[in-house]
């Protein structure tokens, strides 16, 4: 980590992740990563009137991966699908007050899994 530390926000989200677990009856789920040999994140969505009403995640990974996943769900909750799809890894990193440089790739995990979930929602309900 060469002098770079986790921000307080990262530690906070790591120690008490928001929205972890699985939704009982999700409208869609999205995945990113390979569960057999790396970090992996699954995001569950529950959508009502085009708005993400509930969201949850399961993650396997390091401190940054856990914090990123938690923050992703926090950012996406309550947003419309279009807005949520626009969340980038930079937004997530920023919301966490930054990540150590060698952990920046973790924030891509959150953004991609979210996009995948939204895509799957569209596919499932043939909205696109």
């Amino acid at each position, binding site marked *: *980590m060469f002098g770079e530390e*986790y921000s307080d926000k990262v*530690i906070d989200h*790591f*120690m*008490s*992740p928001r929205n*972890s*677990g*699985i939704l*009982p*009856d*999700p409208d869609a*789920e999205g995945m990113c990563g390979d*569960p*057999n*040999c*790396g*970090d992996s994140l*699954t995001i569950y969505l529950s959508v009502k009137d085009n708005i993400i009403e509930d969201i949850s*995640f*399961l*993650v*396997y*990974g*390091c*401190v940054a*991966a*856990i914090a990123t996943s938690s923050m992703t769900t926090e950012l996406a909750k309550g947003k419309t699908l279009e807005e949520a799809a626009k969340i980038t890894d930079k937004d997530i990193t920023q919301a966490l007050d930054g990540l150590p440089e*060698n952990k920046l*790739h973790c924030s891509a995990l959150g953004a991609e899994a979210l996009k995948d979930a939204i895509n799957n929602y569209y596919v499932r309900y043939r909205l696109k």
Partner: protein
Amino acid sequence: MTKQIVYADNAATCALSEKALEAMLPYLKAEYANPSSVYSLGRDSRRAVEKARETVASAIGALPEEIFFTSGGTEADNWALKSLAKRFEREKRHIITTSIEHHAVLNTLGRIEESGFEVTRLGVNEFGQISIDELCCAIRGDTAFISVMAANNEIGTILLSPEIGSRARERGVIFHTDAVQAVGHIPIDVRAMNIDLLSLSGHKFRGPKGTGALFVRRDSALLPDMLGGGQERGKRSGTENVAGIVGLAAALDDSVKNMKKNSERVCALRDRLIEGVLKIPRVRLTGHPVKRLPGIASFVVECIEGESMVMMLDHYGICASSGSACSSGSQEASHVLLATGLPEQLARGSIRLSLSEDNSSEDVERILQICQGRRPPAGIVAIMEIIRALKCIFGFSAASYFIFSVRRLAFVSSPIRWLSKAFCMALLCVHLSSRPFSIYGSAASYCLASAVAKYQAIIMLT
């Protein structure tokens, strides 16, 4: 607010011993002369260095002139291997080592391999042990030397046995051992074990950091490493780190004299720790159950990544480490654990707790208390195990769908349903407020997520 710190990473480094500090102090203050200087103050420093050399030599059964002081274990390994390779490069170009060496040996031999040597890396069994027969079979006519670590730093397994040295001697092959983790902790006698070269590091037995030594048997020629003023009998130039050398010797002397007593105590603590941690579901011991270093307790935990565990334990004031290196962007599983045959996902969930004589049984109890968390009642455990089995068979979401549909089918009057729901919520709160890496009580990671999922499932069921 002061947090109670439990230091359980003594295999990484440990506190300087009082004896070492005391021995060092004069050489950091009044006795600062260069040992190469001829006046009396200089001669005092020289005497201190030579006395330290004698102490180190007698601790491993060597002669004083066979000890060369270095800046640490890594330098000793680099020096030994590069020197041997250079010496044999024209006649013998084959090296035997193991697949679980420390990076100081692993990477040095990698570089030597690039220069045209052939390296045989012996595999290990699930406990991290090599087979002596395999070692003998690997010895060829052009084998220059063997390098086998005395004990592994990640899993604590002891690899050094007198047989390795005697077989190497029979076949006329030089034997180097990286004994950084072993010296001062287990008995080592270079003569009895037929060791030709041995690397050791001061700060692993409570000496100062930045100190180490290389033992080289008298008749196996060692090429100079550093060139300059010709210190260390021309083999390693550079003004001696007098205070460091004196501290290393004092710490080693202390460790060797108290080895039996310390080892018994630390082994008992370690066994208590291992026993307690293994009570946590889905945790496995790594390394050999018995033939391991006194202080090292190492595990892999399903479903939780190593760094997360280390950070979580850190939050509760416990210093531990994980074998999984998570530095260069991509997280790599430990080469040691992969070599013992663990799947990559499991190998990434490694945790190492290493104790020393400084640790008390209260420390161990505290670690266990933090790690185990509070266990839910047996009935809940049984239900959760059923749900886990469902998860294993049908996958996560399928299990939750299954449970969800059961709930839909179930006809329960609403007051009872709400009551049991509240009961389960309360249980959930209790367990989430408790401790890391118990599968039922983790506040983070997949583990937590699955715990939540299980509770949600129970809540739904009711």
